[in-house]
């Protein structure tokens, strides 16, 4: 009798593991870790922006508009509390993503403008700042890619049988992922429109 009972307990534990409980926990944790890295790198970029603006301000004073835009976009992006819980709230996640991609697009426009001022290259620290900014953008791209992969694995587990039952029992829900299409739309440099309709552009994969 005792043997039977312990066997039943063991079997239950086994079944739970078999239903993907451990997989779910592991993948959930991986998503959280990947997300932290994403936040970390976006924060790093937000920290760089004031330095960049300070350095280029003097040289490109004429481009006040774009500078203000960058500063405002940064303020908006950092005003959203970037917490680990963001990934469990699709709406907040969406808002945060839009704010960050606005900063991305404002920054890229600033960089285009900056190209027109070769004098900047001689300002001490400018090249270093650009290297840092590039490095950060690249880290963001890597962190996003890893987050996308982690969420993909997790969502597949949450949705597929039989692990979806386990997921429902323990309240695991599908997590939002980065929407590459929207990102491409927003981060596309503004097209100069001379009356003709907006040209359809090939959506480039935003990293």
């Amino acid at each position, binding site marked *: 009798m005792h043997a039977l009972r312990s066997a039943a307990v063991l079997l239950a534990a086994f079944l739970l593991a078999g*239903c993907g409980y451990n997989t779910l926990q592991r993948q959930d944790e991986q998503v959280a870790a990947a997300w932290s890295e994403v936040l970390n790198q976006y924060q790093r970029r937000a920290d760089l922006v004031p330095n960049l603006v300070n350095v280029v301000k003097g040289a490109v004073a004429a481009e006040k508009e774009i500078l203000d835009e960058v500063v405002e976009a940064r303020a908006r992006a950092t005003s959203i509390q970037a917490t680990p819980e963001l990934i469990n709230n699709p709406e907040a996640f969406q808002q945060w993503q839009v704010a960050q991609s606005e900063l991305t697009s404002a920054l890229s426009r600033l960089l285009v403008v900056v190209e027109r001022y070769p004098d900047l290259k001689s300002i001490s620290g400018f090249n270093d700042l650009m290297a840092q900014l590039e490095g950060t953008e690249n880290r963001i791209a890597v962190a996003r890619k890893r987050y996308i992969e982690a969420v993909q694995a997790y969502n597949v587990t949450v949705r597929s049988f039989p692990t979806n039952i386990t997921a429902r029992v323990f309240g695991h829900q599908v997590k939002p992922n980065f929407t590459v299409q929207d990102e491409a739309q927003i981060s596309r440099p503004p097209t100069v429109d001379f009356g003709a309709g907006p040209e359809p552009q090939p959506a480039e994969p935003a990293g």
Partner: protein
Amino acid sequence: MVVRAAVRAIGAALCLLLLAPPLRAQLEIPPLRGPVTDLTATFTQEQVASLEQRLREFEAAEGAQIAVLFTPTTQPETIEQYSIRVAEQWRLGRKGVDDGVLLLVAKDDRAVRIEVGYGLEGALPDVIANRIIEQVIAPRFREGDYYGGVVAALERIMAIIEGEPLPETLRRPQERGAEDVGAALPVFLMLLFVVSGVLRRIFGTLGGAAFAGGAAGVLVWLLTSALGMAIGAAIIAFLFTVFSGAGGGRGWSSRRRGHHWGGLGGWRGGGGFGGRWGGGGGSFGGGGASGRW
């Protein structure tokens, strides 16, 4: 019959679909055979040998792994995208220390990137990597002096890493590909031991063994969704249940050792080093810098 055939055909098609490479053709990553991989025939054999010797000595002394890859192009990807894929596959640097560096040159693209592992991002930040590219590599590459540029860049990188207090060089920890499974292995064996005894008592030796085998197979399949492993586990569980009832304590230890070979332990172990140079399991997060010449 027709239905079954149709189902089978659809299944086969799906399998093919799953096995097919992703639609967007990406450049293949060359296997890591040594510290220097030259796909462009830029270097002479002596140059490669000399570079490799220097890098191997450096690794023996400092522990950090540096690799050089010359490729004609990284198209259709950017050099950053290709570089991180190479870094992820090669896994340069020690596991946990993450002290790997990849110097990637896309010769026809005239692009170069220094990819820095997590553990060296402090010693070799983007700014420094960028300076090495702009001041050391680009001027020499512009004159066609690829070897000189690479040597000078590597010397700079090595000098920087030498200044960094990294953990002592230990024997490189063995790569543990089957880590997840490995972690579950003791639990699995313990459960198997208990459960097999119980099952044997209930169903008799053969019945219990069949039951244990089936259950183990299904469980492993659900856990790992690798059919081969599931079958392996089923066979182990079956044999285990049969034989652990048969004898006394005498054969136990040898049998237990037998388990490790059986399914789980040997799985994915094939990628070992065997004297060949390979990555130590370091991670990269996109640190470093790129440039053109």
